[in-house]
């Protein structure tokens, strides 16, 4: 039933012609006032769908929230808020993306809101990590030490994307970053928050943000190379 609803929404957006052809179906014509019967049907649909979301996507949402906020009770609340928002915004979800990406997208916003609320409590104390210039990688005049420079990666994009091991290596590498640096990196690269906004949310300066992102990327690159690309699984060797 849900599939019918989403397909019809898509049809509406994609092609008016088709929508006219299908106007005998009550779901394909949003202008038509809904009777009691329709409302009851759609309530049932949403209820069934939302319960299925918890079963199908709850675990993924919960685990991602946990990676980000680290506290189980906060992660649980975030998942709940996400799904409540999904129910409220269900009408707007036109099946343009997969259900999983739609729900993850809502969760990302909830996580950013969570950090926004924490905002000023954030302080940056990982000076040791931030002052590490990875200097052994460079010769004294500032060029790469050719023996230690980046190796060539041979990613197999489509395949790698679906390899559980790769995501586990990435998670392990992330967990090695100092907490605050990881928060900044994940907000920028995973949640896709613009850098200006991150500065506002965490009350830090542009240059502070760039230093943290630079160090995070350098460390993560190094870690992925050592633990994935230079291993038989990663394809470089």
């Amino acid at each position, binding site marked *: 039933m849900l599939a019918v609803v989403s397909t019809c929404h898509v049809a509406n957006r994609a092609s008016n012609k088709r929508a006219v052809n299908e106007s005998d179906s009550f779901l394909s014509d949003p202008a038509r006032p809904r009777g009691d019967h329709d409302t009851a049907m759609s309530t049932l649909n949403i209820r069934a769908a939302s319960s299925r979301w918890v079963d199908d996507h709850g675990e993924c949402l919960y685990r991602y929230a946990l990676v980000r906020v680290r506290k189980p009770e906060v992660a649980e609340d975030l998942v709940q808020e996400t799904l409540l928002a999904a129910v409220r915004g269900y009408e707007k979800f036109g099946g343009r993306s997969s259900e999983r990406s739609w729900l993850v997208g809502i969760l990302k916003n909830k996580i950013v809101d969570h950090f926004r609320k924490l905002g000023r409590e954030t302080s940056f104390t990982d000076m040791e990590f931030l002052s590490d210039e990875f200097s052994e990688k460079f010769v004294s005049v500032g060029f*790469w030490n050719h023996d230690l*420079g980046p190796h060539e990666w041979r990613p197999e994009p489509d395949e790698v994307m679906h390899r559980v091991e790769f995501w586990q290596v990435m998670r392990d590498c992330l967990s090695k970053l100092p907490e605050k640096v990881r928060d900044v990196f994940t907000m*920028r690269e995973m949640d896709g928050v613009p850098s200006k906004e991150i500065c506002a949310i965490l009350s830090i300066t542009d240059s502070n943000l760039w230093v943290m992102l630079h160090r995070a*990327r350098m460390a993560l690159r190094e870690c992925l190379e050592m633990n994935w690309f230079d291993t038989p699984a990663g394809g470089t060797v």
Partner: protein
Amino acid sequence: MPGEPYNPSPIGNPSVLARRNWWQTMFVKFIGKHTPKCHEMVRILSQSMDEPMPLMTRIKKRLHFLICCWCQRYEEQLHYIHETARQFPEHAGEVSNVPFPPDVKERIKQKLADQIR
């Protein structure tokens, strides 16, 4: 290397320009002198992931890549990390086996049902 300035692009270096003849040596020295050193370049490459860079910086970057395949690789790898990190959340279910507590599941289902009523 006391006495002789460091050679950023020696023969055998897989970069485009690698001092294979007199002309290339001149180019390598010129580019090495007038573009940021790798140590600075990696910082610029990271920053360019977050905001647009001035034209001059982008030109210097391109020139630098001619003598330094390592910085070029570094940039490609930053883009790769950017692309994959973006997809991480949807794969978060696969990275750990922390269970989603069944009682929480039920509680959320109940909340959702209340909301829909």
